[in-house]
């Protein structure tokens, strides 16, 4: 496993407040999907901001491809062209009048020539399947569309790692389905995906790896195993997911073979045990 991005013994405290955490380490494996879980207020967003250069750790270091990130202008540019953060509320990320203008913000700042900027915008809109929104003013879009534009704005920098803070918040089920499909496509095209959530069902369904923030410590491992650990989830004030609970019950009754994976969605159950 190569860690494309990692936090090494990182501590952070906001001004005048107690430390959010004092010494966390996390490796983000290249090409995989990682869910960061924890209750509100535990520091998920802080950790994501540390990983993406928005905050500078008080102690420890963030490493990109194994080398410590430098917080010089050049170092930050390097980090930000490789790692992009998508915020929970798309309105915090859309500040231009039109979709095209907004998506071009990153490439233009990078100083790319106009042709290249245009190509990047077209590519990012296509990846998010919103090519038809290119000329629309951002403020007339629906929430789900604005979310897609915000992600396109990050993709326009062609990041190796896409970090999303609560990407499904505010989306309805079909919006969630569509987003998960898009994330899978991005991952297939070699983008590493990190997403924070407090929805264990979602993480169990979507992520290959998981990291659970509980009591100032980070527990990491493959999602299937880690998210079946009810004691850990309880300690992290999270609700157990249906999938592992159903899988356990079905295996106990011999309906599911002992080595079968847990179901991920209710639809998986339709064919089970027949």
């Amino acid at each position, binding site marked *: 496993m190569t860690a494309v991005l990692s936090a090494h013994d990182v501590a952070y405290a906001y001004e*005048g407040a107690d430390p959010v955490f004092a010494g966390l380490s996390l490796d983000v494996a290249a090409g995989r999907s990682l869910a960061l879980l924890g209750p509100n207020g535990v520091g998920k967003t802080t950790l994501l901001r540390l990983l993406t250069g*928005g905050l500078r750790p008080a102690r420890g270091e963030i490493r990109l491809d194994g080398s410590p990130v430098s917080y010089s202008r050049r170092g930050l*540019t390097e980090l930000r062209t490789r790692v992009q953060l998508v915020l929970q509320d798309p309105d915090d990320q859309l*500040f231009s009048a039109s979709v095209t203008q907004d998506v071009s*913000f*990153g490439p233009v*700042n990078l100083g790319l020539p106009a042709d290249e900027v245009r190509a990047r915008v077209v590519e990012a809109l296509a990846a998010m399947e919103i090519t038809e929104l290119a000329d629309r003013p951002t403020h007339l879009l629906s929430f789900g569309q604005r979310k897609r534009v915000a992600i396109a704005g990050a993709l326009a920098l062609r990041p190796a790692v896409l970090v999303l803070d609560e990407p499904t918040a505010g989306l309805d089920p079909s919006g969630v389905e569509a987003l998960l499909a898009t994330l899978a496509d991005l991952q297939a095209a070699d983008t590493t995906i990190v997403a924070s959530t407090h929805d264990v069902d979602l993480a169990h369904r979507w992520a290959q790896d998981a990291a659970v923030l509980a009591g100032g410590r980070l527990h990491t491992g493959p999602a299937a195993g880690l998210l079946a650990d009810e004691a850990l989830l309880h300690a992290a004030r999270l609700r157990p997911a249906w999938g592992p609970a159903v899988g356990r019950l079905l295996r106990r009754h011999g309906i599911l073979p002992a080595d079968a994976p847990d179901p991920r969605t209710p639809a998986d159950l339709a064919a089970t045990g027949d």
Partner: protein
Amino acid sequence: MLAIDAAAYRSPWRRHHPAAKALLAGGLLGCALVLPPWPGAPVTAAITLAVALGWARVPPRTLLRAARTPLGFALTGSLTFLVTVGPDGLGWADGGVRRAADVVARCTAALLCQLLFAGTTPLADTLPRLTRLGLPVTLVEVAALIYRMLFVVLDTTRRIRDAQAGRLGTRSLRAAWRSLGGLGSAVFIRSFDRARRLEAGLAGRGYTGSLSVAVAEIPLKTRFLATAPLPAALAILTTLTLQSLP
């Protein structure tokens, strides 16, 4: 989010009536402004600092950080007193140092009094009581709304700035300007949008134009009220005593 504001809500003096705190800090402020600067200003500053740190327990870090900008202003502004502009151009001013020291001392003492009040008295307690001083209700209501919305808008501003930085919006001067223009317009749009949504939200709660609320009673504690003028009295007495010394 704003350190002085946060300190005011945590202050052990939170339970004291804003008027009593205004009397205490205001008395000291009067001393800082009216007493002869030497020894009046250092005496007032010392007493105010003792009250703020020892009695009102204003966090020293907050006090120090807040004092930096205004002290910077006082120092740079007073540098002009050191020189004089005459017919032959610039020259050193006679007594310029003394004059600058007077102003900086008075300013420091007054600033501490201001921070003593601000660091112990939340605006949420003060604002609704301003109508009792005869200020128009609409003015006070608008001020209270600004105070509430300020934090929502500040929070939005911080997040937009972070998002811009994340997409290399601070990489060059050009990018920084582009970001700033986007930020300014986004904050305007978000503020107005917030106002419209708040209007709809309040309509459901029966808003028809008045924002009257019940203000929690804070009893005027006679003991605190009685002690409130004492620091100022002490400052006056000490100054007069020191002055009468040969």
